[in-house]
């Protein structure tokens, strides 16, 4: 599904990703954790195609395609979805209109016929129930005046409609109360299929109580410094990051910079 090899990226001359490797197979759920400033959101933005980030080295292969060569819209159409950490408010663009346009772009790309307004609306209403979003949201401008929780749920709702192959959730849990968190997690879990994958970026473990990952990676200083199973997340919750970071620094001093992050 996704193969990230030795990815280096910088923004405004500041190196942020420094040789990141990651391999995701169909059906897998991966979580990336790490302290603030480790490069988590940069990874999400680079994968979605934000051009403020310069990739200086490495490659990303997505289902046999050179992802870094693709425009953001081509990535989205071929099934890459980023749930934004900070969804953008777009005054004047009606939510239904926007989502229908996006949905039909994906359908067109897959060679499927576009849905008309009525069929689309019934599909959308079905998906809304799962996330317990009010239908009035459909008539409002995209994200405008939404509460923090509504914005995050709206991202997952869009994901439900667009049915991506690779969903990247960038700190989707931040700013959510426990009920909203549960709804979002249920929504994400319902979308899990053997042929799609999820990459969950989070600072805290609590989302992973609801979305159980197959792999947990710790990102630090632009590299993955540890990979483990779901228990690693619990470990981190209990012990914090410091013990890992100390191990990592010690390895660096000894000239063995980590297992996963090495070239």
């Amino acid at each position, binding site marked *: 599904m996704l193969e990230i090899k030795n990815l280096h990226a910088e923004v405004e001359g500041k190196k942020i990703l420094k040789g990141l490797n990651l391999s995701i197979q169909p059906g897998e759920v991966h979580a990336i954790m790490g302290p603030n400033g480790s490069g988590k959101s940069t990874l999400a933005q680079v994968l979605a*195609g934000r051009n403020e980030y310069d990739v200086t080295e490495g490659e990303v292969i997505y289902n046999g395609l050179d992802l870094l060569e693709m*425009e*953001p819209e081509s990535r*989205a159409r071929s099934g890459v979805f980023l749930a934004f950490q900070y969804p953008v408010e777009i005054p004047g*663009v009606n939510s239904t209109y926007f*989502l229908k*346009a996006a949905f039909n*772009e994906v359908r067109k790309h897959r060679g499927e016929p576009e849905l008309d307004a009525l069929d689309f609306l019934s599909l959308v209403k079905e998906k809304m129930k799962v996330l317990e979003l009010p239908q009035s949201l459909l008539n409002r401008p995209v994200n405008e005046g939404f509460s923090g929780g509504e914005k995050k749920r709206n991202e997952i709702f869009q994901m439900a409609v*667009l049915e991506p192959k690779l969903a990247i959730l960038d700190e989707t849990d931040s700013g959510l109360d426990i009920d909203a968190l549960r709804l979002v997690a249920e929504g994400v879990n319902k979308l899990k299929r053997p042929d799609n994958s999820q990459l969950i970026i989070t600072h805290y473990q609590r989302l992973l109580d609801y979305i159980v990952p197959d792999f947990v990676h710790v990102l630090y200083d632009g590299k993955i410094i540890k990979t483990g199973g779901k228990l690693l997340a619990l470990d981190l919750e209990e012990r914090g990051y410091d013990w890992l970071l100390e191990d990592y620094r010690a390895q660096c001093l000894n000239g063995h910079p980590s297992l996963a992050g090495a070239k």
Partner: protein
Amino acid sequence: MSCRTSTADPVPRADAAFLAAYEQLEQRDAMAPSWLVALRRAGNAHFGELGFPTTEDEEWRFTNVAPIAALPTHSAVKRDVGFDELERFTFGQMPVHRLVFVDGCFSSKLSSPDLGNEALEIYSLKIAMLSGVDWVRKHLGKYARTDENAFVALNTSMLEDGAAIRIKSKQRITLPIHLLFVSTSDQAGATSHPRVLILAERGCDAHILESYESLTEGSTLTNAVTEIAMEEESRLEHCRLQQESTKSYHVGTVQAHQSRSSNLVTHSISMGAKIARVNINPVLNAEGCECVMNGLYVVDGDQLVDHHTAIHHAKPRCNSHEFYHGILDGKAQGVFNGKIFVRPEAQKTDAKQTNRNLLLSDEASIQTKPQLEIFADDVKCTHGATVGQLQEEAVFYLRARGIGKEAARRMLVHAFASDIINRISIEPVRAELDQIMFDLFEREPGE
């Protein structure tokens, strides 16, 4: 005025044709009642003194009206217009109380039959003036001052036709009243000076649409003045749409006078004309008034569009909120000047002004200037103006959902326009205007 020729200027004034047109009207219209003759005469005297403004005049710094002054002004040759020609105009098929004006003259044939009822009086201004309708005589010319603005003076000197609307006390009029002004001439200088008087009586509620359209491409001039008198607790929504031919010239003034606890919402949408200047001046003349002013200008090519708004907070506890958006492409020029006057006694004033502009080409330009003159100390006044391109974050958000770069940009430009259109409360009006914006910005070529 009669001794004008004996002053013997060696070079005739640039606006000589306009002064001559007044004299012709005075001779032609022998039936005019004396109060009207006096009103016109005062207008003409002021116009004679003021003359057309130049760019030396602060109010006209960026809008050079020399091409208007040089027009061979004349009344358009009468032309028979059919219903089928009106249908294509915006709001042309909407259920409304409709008054149609062909080159400034009321057409009963094209207007709704049975205008007016127990809740509403609607006249062609000509008939109202000739038959001496009391309230018309009382209010006409009382608000739009002829000693400050040459175009208002000119319109007043040429007062002949237009609309007079009285919404009676406590009446709620659900069907919009639509005034459609059509210019038909392709002759340079064909001129109309339509005048509208709206009297909103105590506690009434109504919606009024004014639209200005052209049937052909001509260097015509429309110089319109609307006076709005609002009594206590009245509510009025006024939507002004200007989409005359891009060869034409358009000047319009809306002068509103608000009484206690009245609520006025104005929308000015300006898309047409080679040079368009719109002045909107509400006077909040009693406590508890509210005034919302929305505006959208969309221009391209070598068009120039200029909005000058002036809100006068004369009394305490009034609110005014102003939102203007501009979209400029090609070599188009825009001007926005928003004045807010807060007089010493107008404490607890809440005034907010926002002007945002999108420049879609390198050669398009905008001059935007807030002008706040505040003489009270306990007030809340804010203003903000932006000029720029589309928000890149929003473009990326749309692209990250699969919408192509160009489509995303088009969608956002349309949205920028919709943000103003959506403030109109009348659903069919909103829908029709939004369709215009969609066709303009989002429809793909050849679709």
